[in-house]
């Protein structure tokens, strides 16, 4: 290819580019223009490729011209682009307050959201997850937990019966028994799951609810360890300024038994409606595993000690999100569910 032809081409391209560039009014066309002229396979690049066919003098000359052209095109494009971005701001062609393309947003149920937090906390503390059936024999739900037939403690939990000796589990504590029957100490598990009590539904009672039970058994496990686990949990869920309190109580499967409270997360312990002015909110029960339970599963009661604790997932969710009525969890109104997850 003769050199003047090359120079002519450069001139033509410059003329064409200037003409086209003048007509550009939006970013998309500008981008197409850039590809056509300054792109990897654009007109300028094509000419660079054909430089190799020229003799050395022509090549030098054409190369210089080409570089000038390239620079000019690059500058023109940049200037144009800048002009566009300024004009958007100054003239408000784009109304960015208009909504983006709407999408259906999936949500996790608030109870599972909280349950994940709980699991995550105890996972960090070295607990494994254990599960058991929702329909239990009386033996696992009561007897092996030291709640013998005819014991008034059975009245503490109103029970749904399927047969005389088959029940809907009233707590996830039976999982303790299944686990201990199947493995020697050490044991360190949490058992999350669905539980049932024959309570008429109201703002704070639901016949269906969810519990997490914790159990740790080994040599030398003491109430002091229980306190440290509960404190870690309190801090994980509600922040490190939360205090814990243990009050003596009674559960047949633990002894000593306690109810544990957190300092009120709403009022920081000053006293409010949520804590009924006491500064404390009741969370759940805990205690040292009663040796009677160890005897049921064949553990050495002198060698091993352990602690167990429970918690209600609904209760914690209600505290975390300030939900006033437990029934909301099972109504499944999407206007409710959309607030969490």
């Amino acid at each position, binding site marked *: 290819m003769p050199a003047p032809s090359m120079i002519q081409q450069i001139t033509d391209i410059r003329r064409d580019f200037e003409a086209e560039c003048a007509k550009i009014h939006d970013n998309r066309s500008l981008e197409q223009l850039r590809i056509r002229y300054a792109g990897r396979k654009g007109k300028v690049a094509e000419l660079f490729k054909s430089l190799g066919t020229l003799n050395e003098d022509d090549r030098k000359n054409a190369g210089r011209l080409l570089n000038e052209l390239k620079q000019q095109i690059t500058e023109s494009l940049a200037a144009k682009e800048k002009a566009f971005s300024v004009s958007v701001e100054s003239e408000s062609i784009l109304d960015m307050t208009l909504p983006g393309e709407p999408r259906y947003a999936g949500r996790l149920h608030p109870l599972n959201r909280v349950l994940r937090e709980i699991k995550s906390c105890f996972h960090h503390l070295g607990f494994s997850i254990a599960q058991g059936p929702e329909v239990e024999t009386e033996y696992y739900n009561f007897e092996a937990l030291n709640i013998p037939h005819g014991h008034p403690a059975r009245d503490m939990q109103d029970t749904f019966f399927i047969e005389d000796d088959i029940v809907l589990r009233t707590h996830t504590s039976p999982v303790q028994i299944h686990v201990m029957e199947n493995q020697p100490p050490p044991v360190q598990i949490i058992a999350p799951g669905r539980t049932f009590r024959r309570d008429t539904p109201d703002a704070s009672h639901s016949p*269906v609810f969810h519990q997490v039970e914790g159990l740790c058994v080994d040599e030398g496990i*003491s109430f002091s360890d229980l306190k440290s686990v509960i404190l870690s949990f309190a801090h994980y869920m509600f922040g490190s300024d939360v205090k814990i309190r243990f009050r003596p109580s009674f559960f047949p499967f633990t002894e000593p038994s306690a109810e544990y409270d957190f300092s009120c997360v709403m009022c920081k312990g000053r006293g409010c409606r949520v804590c009924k002015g006491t500064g404390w909110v009741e969370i759940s029960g805990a205690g*040292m595993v009663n040796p009677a339970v160890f005897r049921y599963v064949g553990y050495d009661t002198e060698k091993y000690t352990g602690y167990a604790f429970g918690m209600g997932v609904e209760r914690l969710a209600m505290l975390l999100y300030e939900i006033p009525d437990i029934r909301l969890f*099972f109504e499944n109104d999407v206007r409710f569910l959309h607030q969490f997850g």
Partner: protein
Amino acid sequence: MKISLNWLRSYMDFNLSADEIARKLTMVGLEVEEVHSKPSAFDQVVIGKVLSVNKHPNADKLSVCDVDTGSETLSVVCGAPNVKAGLFVPVAKIGGRAADMDIREVTIRGVQSYGMICSERELGLSDNHQGILIIDNPSGKPGQLYLPEFQVPDTVLEINITPNRPDCLSHLGIARELGAILKIPVNRPDDTLQESGGSADQKIAIEIISQDGCPRYSARYIHDVKIGPSPAWLRSRLASVGIRSINNIVDVTNYVLMETGHPLHAFDYDQIAGHGIIVRKARKGERFTTLDENEHVLNEHDLLICDGERPVALAGIMGGLNSEVTGETHHILLESAYFDPMTVRRTAKRLGLNTEASQRFERGADPNGTIYAINRASKMMSEICGGTVYSGIADRVPSDIKPVSITLRSDRISVVLGTNVPHEEVLTILKHLDLNIARPDDPIEVIVPTFRPDLINEIDLIEEVVRHYGFDHIPVNPVMKTAYQKTEDIGSKNTETIRDIMTGMGFIEVLNNTLVSQKHTSLVPDVKPVSLQNPLSPETQFLRTNILANLLDNVQYNINRGERNLMLFEIGNVFHQSGDRLPHESPVLGLCITGHTHPTPFWQASGTTESNLFHFKGFLQNLGKRLHLPDLSFASGISGLLGDGIAVFSGQKRIGLMGEVPQSVLEHWDIQFPVFACEFELLSLLDKIPSTIRFAQIPRFPSVKRDLAVLVEKGIHAKDMIDLIQKTGGNLISKIDIFDVYEGKSLKENQKSVAFALTFMSMDRTLREEDIHPVFNKIVQALSDKFHAALRS
């Protein structure tokens, strides 16, 4: 249990606020649920003298009285028949309180009334509303406050007593605990009494036939009592803990019950045939009417107190109508017994009788507490009811009831609590709880009195120690002991992954009640649902057999509230009868969609398309992809849950069912829009998820696309053609997409056109036309041979 602080103060000296007492009791396990301060049942009630009584002009039974209240004479409308001029009466003035009402100026049948003349009931003193209270010996002049000595303000604590502590179901029991907290003594009221007349043993013969049911029966005879209303202080005490006054005898038994926790029963001695007591089991079908006038049909497990002829009480639960103390009663047979907890509990539960007595016996009364209680009550009966207490107690103790001895090692306390409790502290706590120390040195030997049936083992004593030592004194172990963490259950981990995938695709997670109605269970016709013996209602009679019905509830609920575009899922257990003892229980993943495929953006004028079966199937396929289930397949024509449903397979294993919910089902839920739903058996699904993922080489050579459109009969399934293409093309075919399916006028009636986009690729070279051409032809030939497919020009 209601505990009056005034009552407690009669046993001990303490000077703490009610809130402080409540806090301290709560911190030893006696949870104070409420603190009621009782200022006085009434306010601004003054002594008034009735000056005149005139008939109400507009009402026969009412009168209009002029009452002198010192500074003024009030005109008061009164309905009592016993109002008379000259009487002194309590008058509640305007602005005061009585009968739980604020007293205001009112017009009664056209006559203004400027106050209220009060009955005993209106002053909260008793149930008596027969007429107004007449003040016999007024302590002051008209206008002075009517404030009997027992009407001082009180505070009543509502304490939640755990079932292991029957000893705390009394004021003396709570006083013992408070004494141990404050380390102050408790003064038990004196029970020494004057005995005279004959001996109890001559008046009462006791025979215990059922010794298991009744380990002890003690009785006294009180001669010639005068039945009447109790003195005001007694009525007021009982009222403060929520017990209505009946008559002086019954009130005394109730008072001693609330004081000592030991239930007593007073019989009308003259109604006891043969003047003998027989304790025996009932006969099957035997009938008995308790004093609440209900007749019960008994069985051979129920324990009866009988006289020579017939039952007179349901042991430990309630007395009989036939022998109760009435206004005609002259002599009393007073029972103070100890009944077997299980026996009382079984009967009380079966008959639905939950009484103050049964509550205590079924938790365990004190077998050695019968004597103090009977003496205390007899003493009060002689003082209040004028009776003569005959000497001695007719007391039958078939078997000796011995206290338990427990050894308590101090190092065991440290092991359990994780801290040392000073030895002296341990001893002090035990002593203040009235436990007897047989050996104070380590290991301590403790003799447990029979009022603490809950203390049997060493651990029980450790709990007693820590209750009063305080959990606050146990340090938080700074070095938490943790066990070796076993691999987390893969199933629950993958279940969480499924939740994430579902929410990521835009589904909202719901959680529904496990307990459902027959409408729900009948959706799965071929399994037997599990039914509850004692459901709360027919709507919650069964355990759910499927989650789909729950999801339809949610769809209906939300559509009715204006949300018509729904994508919902739930993971939960379903149940059905298995033939074994325990029902079959397994988790499922249920999901459903209804409404538009996408929300409508502003630049689109009309709504987006309605969901359809293939839109829904896309979600399931996407879920399969995310879970690495390469071989998810679908086969139609499976009847069941979803009418003509579509089975979802992974390999050969059926793992779920999907489809459009039939119109006939939607009608039951009043849903007007199409709903697409699916249920996966979660365990089958989880089972198919590969446990490991291995890297596969990413292709380095370009792929080549070829389109292929064929005409086939409508009945030919796309999946079968795809399988054939894959088989024929072998390794060279890396992907097969369907980009068009057409049926229509230009084709024959039973024909459809299916267009495939085939991607050819090789892992080791760039494919050339001569590589592809023969394979493409082979595919065309194979489709033609097997499905009579004709290449569409």
